[in-house]
């Protein structure tokens, strides 16, 4: 394990965004980057398609040939296309010695992630999640282990962190084998791959105690609007309103992330 006390270490954020036929992930990444850099003041590197044209002023834009596609059910819209197959390359692609790997749909409204850098670690993963209308599922399947949310990952360039990412790559390439081994179903998910790799790397034991010690907050349904009232967020959909404190949000509704209301929210939280 390497020490975190060397101030000369470079630190930054890396986000992967590959557009699909229906969703402009690069635009979503641009928006998430505005918030992340505002909260943490760190440079951001975007990994994206060769023909992408991001608007945010990234520290670096790494363009890669990515032909990979996977499909998942999403908010009752049937099977939609995702292109999140290269996340294991973050270790090699990150230009920073200390990196926060963020999903583009993670909106940072506070700097809580920053205080995690004050400890020594190889990597930190998000072990618990809470949906705003109740606890989220926590297992990879009915009869298997806990999943890990790959939405936010902190890592340093250490041997153990490299092993983690290499192992995720191996799991991805041999996913049919690993999903049977771990009694999972469905298509490839980064959340599952990181959970399997982390468990294997730690002697086939649970590592929840070594993760980020608080829950991620997720909005897992369609959102009509998020407004700020008295420094709190009022999240509305067609059926209900929920009031939440200004906190980091994992927003699954890509339609919302691309909406004018989301743009307004980002501007209003300066």
């Amino acid at each position, binding site marked *: 394990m390497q020490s975190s*006390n060397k101030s000369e270490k470079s630190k930054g954020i890396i986000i992967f965004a590959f557009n699909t036929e229906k969703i402009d992930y690069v635009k979503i990444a641009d928006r998430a980057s505005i918030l992340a850099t505002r909260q943490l003041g760190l440079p951001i590197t975007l990994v994206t398609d060769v023909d992408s044209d991001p608007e945010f002023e990234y520290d670096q834009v790494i363009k890669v040939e990515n032909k990979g596609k996977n499909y998942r059910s999403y908010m009752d819209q049937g099977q939609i296309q995702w292109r999140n197959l290269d996340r294991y390359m973050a270790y090699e692609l990150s230009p920073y010695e200390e990196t926060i790997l963020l999903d583009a749909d993670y909106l940072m409204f506070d700097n809580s992630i920053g205080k995690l850098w004050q400890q020594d670690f190889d990597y930190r993963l998000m072990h618990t999640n809470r949906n705003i209308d109740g606890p989220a599922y926590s297992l990879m399947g009915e009869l298997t282990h806990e999943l890990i949310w790959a939405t936010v990952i902190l890592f340093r360039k250490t041997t153990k962190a490299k092993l983690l990412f290499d192992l995720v790559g191996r799991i991805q390439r041999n996913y049919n084998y690993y999903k049977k081994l771990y009694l999972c179903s469905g298509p490839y998910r980064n959340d599952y791959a990181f959970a399997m790799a982390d468990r294997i790397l730690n002697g086939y034991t649970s590592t929840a*105690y*070594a993760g980020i*010690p*608080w829950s991620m907050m997720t909005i897992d349904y369609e959102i009509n609007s998020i407004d700020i009232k008295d*420094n709190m967020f009022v999240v509305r959909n067609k059926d*209900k309103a929920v*009031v939440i*404190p200004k*906190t980091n949000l994992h927003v699954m509704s890509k339609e919302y992330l691309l909406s004018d209301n989301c743009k307004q929210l980002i501007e209003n939280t300066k």
Partner: protein
Amino acid sequence: MNTPDQLVEQVKQATDYQINRILLKEKILEQLHMPYENGMFKLTPALLAFVSTWPTEILYLEDVYENPIEINKQVFLVKAQQHYQATMNFWHTEHAKLKQIRKV
């Protein structure tokens, strides 16, 4: 005057105080974590009381990552009490706001 449909819409947009309260607490649980000397501590009344009554200036405490961290009692206490106070003040203020919001 509101039509029944409009009333139904308004009720749907009302918010549940109990859910809001729990979500606020989740945020507070995150804020109660304080880094100190390469360790991470979740501040609780028990932890603060324990440290304040410890008879020596240097002690070792287990942090949330199950590591023993060397603690300078006075330095830790000042930092922890300030952090705890600020977080609890924030919780109290935000909770008061929640109670003002229309609820179902």
